[in-house]
């Protein structure tokens, strides 16, 4: 493959399809065709977005609520900027705090030689960016937990019809259960079993992560089972003729063959997990985006709606980014796209 072709296929693998015509244009390929593509892939989405914003701005001011009128895009943007400024200010505070502490520590150690310095941690409120981080950590913890359960169980389901029949009723019954039903059970169980020790992860984090796992493991489980169950019969015959031991059979035949399905499942699971997370955080009071939305709601200030809308966009954009990330991973591991690597 030539270098430009390699670049184009890399961009396509990364899901950056809209950039492709631009690259091709720079490479001097048929400009008319590439411009048409550019209009389709970039122009139309921009147009659609603009129309949406205009409609929103026109309609928003007219709707009055108990806490003021519905904010338009400009107000929401201002709140987003405000949240980011707040975060920067908070970080500045933190830096100052630790800088002061270092100074004081030096004096303390001079005054009381041999005595250990009782270090203090900065205890400012989590900022919006911190909350995003907490949410991401929670969803990944839940997602990893879900995958660790769902992939092996799915593989067994795919390999053994009997096992599948035994597990299937539970899967079908638990799959549609809302996170809001799981969460109280999980919180009580976590309180009882995880202990009251403040060491390690906070309970709210654990409860939220487990709830995410409970709700998001099903797509991975089902897709893995389907992927493993639909392995080409001839490939299994190869394994039989070679008398491959179970480990090799799994590693060389079953898993590579099922990998595209497994990753489709993982991608769906992460999407479900992210959606579930917000609800779980609201109830469990895990200091992430869910808690942010809930706190703003309880706040009831004139900025409430705009702040929650900032959260809505944040959740949406991060969800989209996570999905894209999984899509790229999925493309990289699928054997039928192996050459694109």
């Amino acid at each position, binding site marked *: 493959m030539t270098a430009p072709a390699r670049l184009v296929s890399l961009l396509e693998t990364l899901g950056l399809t809209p950039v492709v015509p631009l690259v091709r244009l720079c490479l001097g390929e048929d400009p008319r065709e590439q411009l048409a593509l550019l209009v389709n892939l970039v122009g139309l989405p921009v147009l659609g977005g603009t129309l949406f914003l205009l409609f929103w701005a026109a309609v928003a001011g007219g709707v009055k609520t108990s806490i003021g009128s519905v904010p338009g895009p400009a107000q929401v943007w201002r709140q987003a900027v405000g949240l980011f400024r707040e975060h920067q200010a908070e970080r500045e505070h933190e830096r100052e705090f630790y800088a002061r502490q270092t100074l004081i520590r030096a004096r303390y150690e001079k005054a009381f030689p041999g005595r250990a310095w009782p270090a203090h941690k900065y205890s400012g409120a989590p900022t919006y960016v911190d909350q995003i981080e907490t949410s991401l950590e929670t969803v990944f913890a839940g997602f990893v937990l879900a995958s660790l359960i769902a992939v092996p169980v799915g593989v067994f389901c795919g390999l053994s019809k009997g096992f599948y029949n035994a597990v299937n009723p539970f899967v079908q019954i638990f799959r549609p259960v809302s996170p809001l039903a799981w969460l109280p059970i999980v919180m009580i169980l976590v309180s009882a079993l995880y202990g009251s020790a403040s060491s390690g992860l906070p309970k709210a984090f654990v409860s939220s992560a487990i709830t995410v796992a409970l709700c998001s493991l099903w797509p991975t489980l089902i897709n893995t089972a389907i992927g493993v169950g639909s392995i080409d019969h001839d*490939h299994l*015959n*190869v394994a039989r*003729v070679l*008398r*491959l031991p179970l480990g090799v059979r799994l590693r060389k035949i079953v898993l*590579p*063959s099922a990998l595209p399905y497994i990753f489709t499942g993982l991608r769906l699971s992460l999407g479900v997990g992210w959606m579930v997370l917000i609800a779980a955080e609201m109830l469990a009071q895990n200091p992430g985006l869910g808690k942010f939305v809930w706190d703003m709601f309880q706040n009831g200030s004139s900025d409430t709606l705009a702040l929650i809308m900032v959260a809505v966009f944040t959740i949406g954009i991060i969800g989209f980014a996570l999905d894209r990330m999984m899509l790229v991973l999925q493309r990289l591991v699928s054997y039928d796209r*192996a050459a694109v690597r």
Partner: protein
Amino acid sequence: MAILELSGVSKSFGRGERRTCVLREIDLAIAEGEFLAIVGFSGSGKTTLINLIAGLARPDGGSIRLDGREVDGPGPDRGLVFQNYSLLPWLTVEENIALAVDNVFPGWPRERRRELIGRHLDLVHLGPARHKLPRQLSGGMRQRVAVARALAMNPRILLLDEPLGALDALTRGALQDEIERIWEAERKTVVLITNDVDEALLLADRVIPLSPGPEARLGPPVPVALPRPRDRRELNHDPEFKRLRAAITGWLLDAGAVRKVAVGPRPLPRLLTAA
């Protein structure tokens, strides 16, 4: 002494009224180093027969013995080349063969296994393509990889299940020559399943027609005494070749015609004894 012996082998599929008998009372003995071809129409039970020998399916009745031991499952002592290659698409040519070699000779030092893989890649002229994935290869090349994989296991017997069925006529001819060359070099016992009478006569020491199923039975064996190496162009004008081809084709067509007319199982006329 026969290396592979089938006696009274039957195989049916389905249950109750749906039950169809695919193979009935098959007797067959293959000598060490022999190249045997079994020719039959599509759907006559050829693949079932080779699956039984490979151990991928179990017979309902009768026995299959390899070197005197009952076949009770698949194993690398019978190198099976599948109809549709069955290469693992996520492994390169070399890795596909290595998967077989590493599992059949786990006790060998690494170097010796690499050498064995390399030798078989060279045998099928695929050394330069060793790092390619199967989908980057043509059908003919894929089948050569499959042959190399089967041979690298050093099987007692090589089973070829319509290995060239999915290839175009020219590639098919080239691969037939290649199979003959490999057989001359390796002198393995080979069972070839095919629907091509010319292919069978070109390659085999002995050709056995299989009547169309259900209840397929083996016809009279036809020894092929044509001198080797056989050249397909010369062969086309060889009177002995023409006679054998006419005999086998005739038997198959008659067996097919009888099959259509017959309501119940009826003994087939032994047409070939007259020839």
